[in-house]
């Protein structure tokens, strides 16, 4: 029940927001959006966090939202240096091309985005103060924050923002963000107008702000005339830390930026040190041996010892980081959806989640739509193990004697163990699966059809990194023309629903389209998605404010030493 004061406040808020934002408020009031989902949806449409907080407060009289990941548990001490274990960047760090975790963690210490994808509140405005779409969702206008300077003292302007994003959208630059912008934003679609940047999209996209946020890790804002190939000489940016030193393959150091623009988020640390490691186990040992204070992006199997040790603080962030088993819909026996569904029903997902990840994740429901993503329809039934039904489906498909097939899988984290779990599950219904585990480079090959065991095998397992919104994975891995469609799934119905989803600005309609896609995928079962993993890390006891981001970033702007 909303109080009279609350109603008056909401009326005041409604007068300030767009029609799309009004829809989100209606969804919240109708109980179809939770608090966290409301924050995510509201911020993506450009509603400021204080305003969204005001809506929640009006509804409940309480301060909104969960504590952000990395929020300090007590008073934090200023000063000191924090030592972080980071994967060795595999290539020269160039913001336009960077594609590896070590590179994006390093860049993230000095660079900033238009918005930061926060694990709990959605999009936090950073270099853009606010944004809004037009009525069609095809034109987005971002108000660029004024008074921000680059580390060389030059002011950061809308022209810099436009140049940065246009550079990424230009195919001639070979940007790693091209796959993110594909079909949404092209070269020339970004224009600076005064203190605003206007994006004219190739098609409507309600989730566009995510594509220019930290979710798109290449989108660090740089000066318009900057040469990104020279980035490691100064690590230019606007962030809370400035460049101190960088030795390829060894590490990097950054110091507090005394002129940082955000007075409410001044860093506690004097210095951030990144130490590069070429493998995960030495990072764990380094934390245990007091060589570093923080490890991030670790697997449960390798970090198991840290999670129960009282000398360390474990960090878990729910994410859409997942595994996907594709069954080729164009190759027997998987041409029959009953066969695919039988295998999906044979898997005991809770047992797999417990056994492989000690419950550090969420159950998957055989679609790329994860529980952390705002458009996921949580009313869709959760698929559960049903061996009797699975055997019946096999019998109906004329496969009561079972069949032989091979799962191809990369040697990545727990994926080989997941393949064994799937093999054992299949055995329960008489299906005999062999396993072919390969080194990742062999397995992914050229990542194109005809030159990749991942995309060409009859059954293949793959890992997909976290995405705040499902657009890229739902498109590339399942649409008929998807470039990662390892299942070779061709469904005009799915394609139409996907197009419907991406063109909707209205939350309810978007969720409705996603719900239909989820149900369609359950019926067709081209893929098995057993779980979504938590993004994991650990710190030395007493270290506070480390903000892990499942995209891979390590936000230390509010971190402090033990």
């Amino acid at each position, binding site marked *: 029940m909303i109080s009279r004061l609350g109603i008056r406040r909401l009326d005041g808020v409604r007068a300030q927001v767009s029609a799309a934002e009004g829809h989100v408020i209606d969804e919240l009031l109708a109980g179809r959006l939770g608090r966290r989902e409301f924050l995510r949806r509201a911020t993506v449409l450009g509603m400021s966090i204080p305003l969204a907080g005001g809506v929640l407060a009006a509804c409940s009289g309480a301060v909104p939202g969960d504590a952000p990941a990395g929020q300090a548990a007590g008073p934090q001490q200023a000063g000191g240096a924090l030592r972080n274990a980071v994967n*060795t960047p*595999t*290539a*020269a760090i160039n913001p336009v*091309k960077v*594609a*590896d975790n070590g590179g994006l963690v390093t860049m993230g210490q000095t660079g900033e985005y238009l918005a930061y994808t926060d694990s709990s509140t959605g999009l936090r405005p950073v270099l853009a103060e606010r944004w809004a779409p037009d009525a069609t969702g095809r034109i987005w206008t971002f108000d660029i924050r004024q008074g921000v300077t680059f580390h060389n003292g030059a002011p950061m302007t809308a022209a810099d923002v436009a140049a940065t994003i246009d550079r990424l959208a230009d*195919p*001639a*630059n*070979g*940007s*790693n963000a*091209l*796959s993110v912008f*594909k079909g949404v934003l092209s070269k020339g679609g970004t224009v600076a107008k005064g203190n605003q940047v206007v994006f004219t999209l190739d098609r409507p996209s309600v989730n566009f702000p995510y594509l220019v946020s930290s979710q798109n890790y290449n989108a660090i804002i740089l000066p318009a005339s900057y040469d990104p*190939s020279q980035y490691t000489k100064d690590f230019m940016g606007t962030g809370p830390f400035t460049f101190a030193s960088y*030795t*390829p*393959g*060894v590490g990097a150091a950054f110091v507090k930026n005394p002129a940082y623009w955000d007075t409410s988020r001044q860093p506690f640390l004097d210095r951030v040190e990144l*130490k590069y*490691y*070429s*493998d995960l*186990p*030495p990072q764990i*040992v*380094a934390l*245990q*041996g007091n*060589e570093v204070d923080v490890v991030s992006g670790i697997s449960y199997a390798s970090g198991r010892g840290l999670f129960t040790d009282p000398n360390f603080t474990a960090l878990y962030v729910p994410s859409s980081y997942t595994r996907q088993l594709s069954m080729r819909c164009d190759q027997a026996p998987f041409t029959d959806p009953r066969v695919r569904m039988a295998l999906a029903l044979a898997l005991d997902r809770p047992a797999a989640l417990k056994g492989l990840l000690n419950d550090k994740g969420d159950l998957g429901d055989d679609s790329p739509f994860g529980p952390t993503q705002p458009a996921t329809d949580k009313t869709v039934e959760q698929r559960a193990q049903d061996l009797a039904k699975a055997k019946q489906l096999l019998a109906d498909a004329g496969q009561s004697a079972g069949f032989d097939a091979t799962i191809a899988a990369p040697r990545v984290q727990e994926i080989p163990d997941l393949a064994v779990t799937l093999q054992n599950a299949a055995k329960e219904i008489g299906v005999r699966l062999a396993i072919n585990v390969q080194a990742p*480079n*062999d397995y*992914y*090959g*050229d*990542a*194109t059809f005809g030159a*990749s065991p*991942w995309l060409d095998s009859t059954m293949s397992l793959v890992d997909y*990194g976290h995405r705040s919104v499902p657009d*890229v994975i739902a498109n*590339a891995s399942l649409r008929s023309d998807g*470039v*990662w469609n390892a299942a070779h799934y061709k469904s005009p119905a799915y394609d139409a629903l996907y197009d419907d989803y991406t063109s909707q600005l209205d939350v309810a309609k978007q969720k409705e389209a996603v719900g239909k896609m989820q149900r369609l995928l359950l019926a067709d079962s081209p893929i098995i998605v057993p779980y979504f993993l938590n993004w994991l890390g650990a710190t030395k006891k007493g270290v506070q404010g480390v903000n892990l981001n499942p995209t891979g970033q390590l936000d230390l702007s509010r971190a402090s030493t033990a």
Partner: protein
Amino acid sequence: MTAAAEELPRVADPPPPPRRLLRRLLRPLVLFVTNLVLLSALVFFGAEVLPGNIGRLLLGRTADQRSVDVLNHELGADRPIVVRYLSFLNGLLHGDLGTSLALRQPNSQLLSAALLNSVKLAALAFVIVVPLALLGGVLAALRRDTWVDRTIIGVGVALTVLPEFVTGLILILVLSLGLKLFPVTAAAPPGSGFGTQLYYLVLPALPLVIVLFGYLAKLARTGTITALDSDYHRTAVLKGLPARVVVTRHVLRNALLPTISVLGTQAGYLIGGLVVVEILFNYRGIGSLIFMAAQNKDIPLLEVGVLTVGVAYMLLSSLSDLVAGLLDPRVRTR
């Protein structure tokens, strides 16, 4: 000819005529260059069969194909392999080791830093293991078939079969995390002095010592036993020479020859083959540099890395031959 006659020191051969001397000097040089050219071709063309292309490997499997094509073009990786190989050789002949495609740094810089690190680690391991193994082998031979012999050789050989990552992890768990005697990494903080660097390298050197000790000790034992069973040893004893003199002057000089021959190749392994130890102790040596280059299909860096290790192998083998020649006149006159 009797065995005793074979082992007696021979009168030195007359000096070879100048032509023969020139041939003797040139032959290894020609072999050396031929080996390097063959090695470079093998690595360059062999690396082509590695899966993927550098653009795809650096940008990841989810990158747009247009981005991959642009990067491959920027790096010159889309040129025919023969053109790339000839361009690499041309650079090499002009003293240019090229640039790493992935790291965009001169290969000479990357290599010199990594090589220096590898040499430091290898040298320390060598300094520890060679005297220990020789001492152990000789002691085992002198106490042949006693518990001393069985313990030294038995334990040494048993430890040899343990992979470095197993011994390395055990040493880290016990000596670093447990007893806190050593740091868990081999990389000393920047600007550290010689003593600190040495301290950081002790733990990573120990798995190498463990792997090599049994093998070298067994070789030393076998050589010593052969020498002890020889007629010249019996003659020396019968002459009434003190045991210490017999062992140091007559036994060791002959006993250690096989071991010294092997040390050259082992030193080569210590410089270029320590990928596991380097990764485990987060040490940037030449082994992990080559491994990273192979993973990224960074062929110029892979090529110069392998060639450097090849040169190290050849030089160290030649050095061990030289030392063996100094100790044994038979080798010199062969």
